């Protein structure tokens, strides 16, 4: 990088007209910033992974190294064998079961409800919708304790129901689906109606295929949201065998003796992030798909 480029930047930012100034220092500034951040973002994960392959003696004695001197599998063997106090495979199974069931139900509920509020005509439709939306802005912390009582009354404490069902009541995804459906031309289902198609038929054969993109996005966010939920499972689960992995990991700090078994601790953390990472790799383009709020407002 030459001094000339620095001078060029100064000229550029000072609004001095220099048409087509080709050497752009801003590119290097952007690169430097992004690369530093990416390193900072990725090093913790690498450090966690490599530490899970280190022996405790190496962890304690060898100082900082990014890669282990000897790669060992013992930590993972120990994790998988410890099915009494830290049954991580069981926790992972619980989490997968909860997240998958929750996500499937979310898709069903938001597509049906979105259809109701967007495509159907009934008295007070919009009033009802915006009333619910308004109420849902009230911070969730207020209903935390009574929600627990309801779960308790239904006999759902320490069951997957507690994680799967209450989250279906949310309004955020329904709002998104309704917005998306509002953008579909009305003529489409009106002509089908003239031909005598029922609402269910229109929902299933016409609207559902068209709203697939937004449903996929909502499904992914529901899955990761459910997977990573922390406060609610910590409240609802006391039974070690029944809890999802996020709640289980809270117990590990004590189980693995406050970093006396750091390799096991890291191995467990790494196992716990594998499912969402895999999901991300497969569905990356949907995760980082444009959520353009400008378009949503103007359109």
């Amino acid at each position: 990088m030459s001094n000339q480029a620095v001078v060029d930047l100064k000229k550029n930012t000072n609004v001095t007209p220099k048409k087509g100034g080709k050497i752009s220092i801003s590119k290097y500034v952007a690169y430097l910033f992004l690369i530093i951040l990416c390193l900072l973002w990725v090093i913790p994960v690498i450090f966690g992974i490599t530490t899970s392959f280190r022996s405790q003696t190496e962890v304690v004695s060898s100082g900082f190294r990014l890669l282990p001197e000897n790669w060992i599998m013992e930590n993972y063997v120990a994790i998988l064998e410890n099915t009494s106090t830290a049954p991580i495979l069981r926790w992972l199974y619980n989490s997968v079961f909860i997240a998958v069931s929750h996500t499937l139900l979310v898709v069903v509920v938001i597509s049906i409800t979105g259809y109701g509020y967007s495509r159907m005509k009934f008295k007070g439709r919009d009033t009802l919708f915006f009333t619910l939306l308004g109420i849902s802005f009230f911070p969730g912390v207020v209903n935390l304790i009574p929600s627990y009582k309801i779960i308790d009354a239904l006999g759902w404490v320490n069951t997957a129901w507690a994680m799967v069902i209450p989250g279906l009541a949310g309004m955020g995804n329904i709002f998104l689906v309704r917005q998306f459906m509002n953008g579909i031309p009305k003529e489409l289902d009106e002509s089908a109606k003239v031909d005598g198609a029922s609402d269910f038929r229109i929902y299933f054969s016409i609207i559902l295929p068209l709203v697939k993109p937004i449903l996929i996005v909502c499904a992914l966010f529901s899955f990761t949201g459910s997977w990573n939920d922390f406060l609610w499972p910590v409240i609802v689960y006391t039974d070690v065998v029944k809890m999802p992995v996020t709640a289980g990991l809270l117990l590990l700090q004590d189980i693995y003796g406050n970093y006396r078994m750091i390799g096991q601790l890291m191995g467990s953390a790494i196992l716990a992030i594998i499912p969402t990472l895999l999901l991300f790799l497969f569905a990356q383009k949907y995760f980082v798909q444009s959520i353009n709020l400008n378009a949503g407002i103007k359109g």
Partner: protein
Amino acid sequence: MKKKFNLAPVFFVGPHLILFIVFILLPTIYGIYASFTKWNLLGAPEWVGLDNYKTIFFDSTSTFHTQFFRGLRNTLMFVVLTVPLLIIIPLMIAVALEHKKVKAKSLMQSILYLPGLISISAAALIWSLIFNKQLGITGNVFGSETVWASHQPYAWIMIVVLTLWGGVGGNMIIYRASISGVGQDLYESADLDGAGPIRKFFSITLPSINFPLIYTFVMTTAGAFNVFGQPLMLTKGGPQESTSVLMMYIRKLAFGSGESIAGMASAMAVLLGVVILIISALQYYLMNRKSA
């Protein structure tokens, strides 16, 4: 002739309506009601009027008074420390990623977004290793002799770093999508006028993504008020309860071992809820007015 009542909307809207009433509306109303009661979560709540609120606000000898104001202060501390960074850093990333000449955008975007997919408990385990005096980076690379979790300001630094690491990705994606939607012709005519990148950012980009900015600002702030996992996992609320946030006290009072004081916890929850609502409304009003 009376029109036949159409059952179809009931089928489409009804199931969610029931879920909404059972899991949002009733608990919210009951939560507000419970804040006016003495309640141990097991029996029926006993109406005590404004007693809980009076204790929280005026009885300076009570632990509830101390806990509420300490929890609120620490929660506000978290909000003030993290929210500006959770807006500014993602915005800088988005602008850098939208730079025409930068390559490998999607790889970099994925790396920066990924920690958001890692649950707070797994992320906290990894970061507490990094901040470990003996084993981690702070001790071994930077030679810090301090046990970070039990000393300030390090305890706050840990919490802020973990929050940023996991939190910048979501806002970044919203900003990036919004910036890429800004018309290229605006930038091209600015180029012709000789405007530099900084000038273009403040004169074109920023005003064009006004709504996403308001939205993320309000949502990020409201989310930050509910902070719970980071201090619980990293510092256990210490040192000397200086990172004990309100949600930790609310959970302890309502569900902690020993005596449940759910009425008092409800009153604190209602007060926290009201604070969140007021601040969200204020943000929305101020930012909307400024841009209008």
